[in-house]
C-alpha cells in the first residue's frame, strides 16, 4: 500500500479551512463563511424555518456544498473526517436562525451526534428552537430493527435536496421535522468499495482491502460492510447491491416493500476515484433491474457527490416518492454539489 497520494495542498493540517475558503469563493457571494468553520447563505429570509447540515470535511462536495438555493441554509464543517466542534455548530445555528427554529439534518455518527447535541443545547440556552433528524440510509450497517445504529451515506444528497425544498414552504419547525423524517424513512443506500482514500494529514489509507476484492456494504470512511467478494463486473455487482436495498424495504416493518408501480429517485454515487464511465455503466444495469421489477425511476442523480478523497467505490441510493415527496423533489435547486431544473409534471 503506498503511503502517499499526490495531493495539491499546502499545510496538511489546514486543508479543512482552506477548502472552505475556496468553497466560499466558488459561491461568488451567495454564501459567506461564519465563525470558525461554517458556511451560510447570505440571504436567508426572515422567519424561514432554517435547515442546517454538516459533518466532517474531506467528503467534498458534501455537506458544505449542499448549501444553496432550495437546499440547506448552512453547514457546520468539521476537520477532515471529524465532526464539527460544538462551538462551530452553535455559530452556524446562530447564523441561520431567523426566529422560526433550526432543523439539524446530518449523518448518524457518534462524533457528529455528540457535537451537534452539545451545539443544540448551547443554542437552546439562547432560546433558539432546535430539532434533530438523523440520516441513516446505509442498510448494510445494521438491521432495520436497529436503525439508530445505521450510518448515513450518499442518500443524504436526495434527502437534503428534498428537505431543502420542504424548508422553503414549512411554516413551523414541527412541519419540517416531520417532512425530513419521512424523506429519511423512504431513502435506502448500499455502498461498495474497491480501494481506500487517504487522510491528507498522514497520507495513510483509511483502510486496507485486497486488490482483487470488493467490500460489499462498506461505509464512506471505509467501515467494513457485510462481505468481501471477489472483484467482478458492473453487471454482476449491480443486482447484488440492489437486492440488498429491495430486501431492506421488504424486511423493515416501518415501510412497504418496493413494488411494481413505485416511483423512485435513483442515485449512483462515486466514492471519489470511480469514474463517471463506471457509474453510467452501473446505472444502465440498475435501470434495467428496476424496470424488470416494475419500479420506475422518476429522476436520476449520478456522480461523485459523497466521496472519501480518492477512495474507489460506488453506492446506490433509492428514495421512494409519494405525492408529498414529489412536491419536494420537483422544485429546481442550485448549489456547488447538486443542481437540477424544475421537474415539470403533466
Amino acid at each position, binding site marked *: 500500500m503506498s503511503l502517499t497520494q499526490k495531493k495539491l495542498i499546502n499545510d496538511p*493540517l489546514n486543508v479543512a479551512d482552506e477548502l472552505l475558503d475556496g468553497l466560499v469563493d466558488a459561491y461568488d457571494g451567495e454564501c459567506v463563511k461564519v465563525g470558525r468553520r461554517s458556511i451560510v447563505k447570505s440571504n436567508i429570509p426572515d422567519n424561514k424555518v432554517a435547515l442546517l447540515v454538516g459533518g*466532517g470535511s474531506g467528503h467534498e462536495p458534501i455537506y458544505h456544498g449542499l448549501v444553496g438555493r432550495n437546499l440547506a441554509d448552512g453547514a457546520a464543517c*468539521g*476537520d*477532515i*473526517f*471529524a*465532526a*464539527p*466542534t*460544538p*462551538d*462551530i455548530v452553535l455559530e452556524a445555528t446562530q447564523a441561520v436562525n431567523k426566529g422560526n427554529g433550526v432543523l439539524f439534518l446530518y449523518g448518524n*455518527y*457518534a*462524533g457528529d451526534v*455528540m*457535537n451537534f*447535541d*452539545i451545539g443544540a443545547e448551547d443554542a437552546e440556552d439562547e432560546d433558539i428552537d432546535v430539532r434533530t433528524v438523523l440520516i441513516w440510509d446505509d442498510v448494510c*450497517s445494521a438491521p432495520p430493527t436497529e436503525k439508530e*445504529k445505521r*450510518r448515513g451515506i450518499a442518500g443524504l444528497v436526495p434527502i437534503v435536496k428534498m428537505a431543502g425544498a420542504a424548508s422553503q414552504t414549512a411554516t413551523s419547525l414541527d412541519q419540517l421535522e416531520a417532512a425530513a423524517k419521512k424523506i429519511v424513512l423512504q431513502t435506502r443506500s448500499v455502498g461498495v468499495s474497491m480501494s481506500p482514500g487517504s*487522510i491528507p*494529514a*498522514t497520507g*495513510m*489509507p*483509511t*483502510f486496507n482491502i485486497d486488490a482483487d476484492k470488493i467490500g460489499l456494504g462498506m*461505509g464512506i*470512511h*471505509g*467501515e*467494513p*460492510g457485510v462481505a468481501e467478494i471477489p472483484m467482478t463486473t458492473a453487471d454482476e455487482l449491480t443486482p447484488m447491491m440492489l437486492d440488498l436495498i429491495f430486501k431492506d424495504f421488504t424486511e423493515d416493518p416501518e415501510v412497504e416493500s418496493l413494488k411494481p408501480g413505485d416511483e423512485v429517485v435513483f442515485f449512483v454515487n462515486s466514492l471519489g476515484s470511480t469514474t463517471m464511465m463506471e457509474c453510467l455503466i452501473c446505472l444502465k444495469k440498475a435501470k434495467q433491474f428496476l424496470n424488470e421489477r416494475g419500479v420506475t425511476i422518476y429522476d436520476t442523480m449520478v456522480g461523485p457527490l459523497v466521496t472519501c478523497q480518492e477512495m474507489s467505490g460506488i453506492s446506490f441510493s433509492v428514495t421512494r416518492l409519494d405525492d408529498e415527496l414529489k412536491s419536494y423533489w420537483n422544485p429546481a435547486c442550485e448549489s456547488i454539489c447538486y443542481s437540477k431544473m424544475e421537474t415539470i409534471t403533466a
Partner: protein
Amino acid sequence: MAKESLNSEETTAMLHLVADAIIAAEPLLSQADRDLGDGDHGIGMARGMNAAKEALAAGGFSTVDEPLVATGKAMMSSMGGASGVVFGTVFRGGKELKGSNLLDSPGLAKWLQSAADGVMKRGGAKPGDKTMIDALVPAAEKAAEVQSLSLPEAVTAVADAAEAGKEASKAMIATMGRAKTLGEKSVGFPDAGALSMTIIFSTMRDYICS
C-alpha cells in the same frame, strides 16, 4: 521528590507534560485507530493538546480545577469528532475540584468519577463496549478505592488500572463509534482512545512520582 499533592502551578505543569506525551504519541495513536477506525485519532488528539498547551500557557490559574477545565475546553473547541467531546469531557470533569488549592488522592478520585460519569452520559457507551471508557472507568474506580493512599501511590494504581483496562479492551468486540462495524474483526486490537487514556495517566504518574 514524589509529590504528595499538586498546587495549580504543578497541575498546569503536569498537564503540559500530558499534552507533550500525547503529541509525541501521534503516530502510535493514529496506527491504533487505523486498525479499528479511520486512522485519525492521533491527529485529533494532537490538535486538541496543542490547543490545550496554548490555554495552559495563558495561565492565570489560582485553583487546580482551572487548568483542568481549561484543558478540557480547549480540546472540545478545537478537535471535533467524538474524541473532542469525550476527552474534553474528561478534563472538564475537573470542575468538581472547584476552589481546591491542592490536587490530592481524594481530589483525583472526585475528578475521575465526574469524568467517567460525564463521558458515559454524553456518549451512551458503557464498560465493555471497547472504547476509552474501558480505561477510564477502571481508573476512576481504582482512584475511589485508593483515595486514602498517598498521591504517588494512588496515581500509580490508577495508571495500572487504566493500562489493564486498555489491555482488556483488546478482547472486546467494538459496539460504538466507527469501529463497531468491524464487529468481531475488532478483537485483538486495543481501542485507540483507551490507549490515549493510558498515556495521559502514565504521564501524570511519571510527573507525580518524580
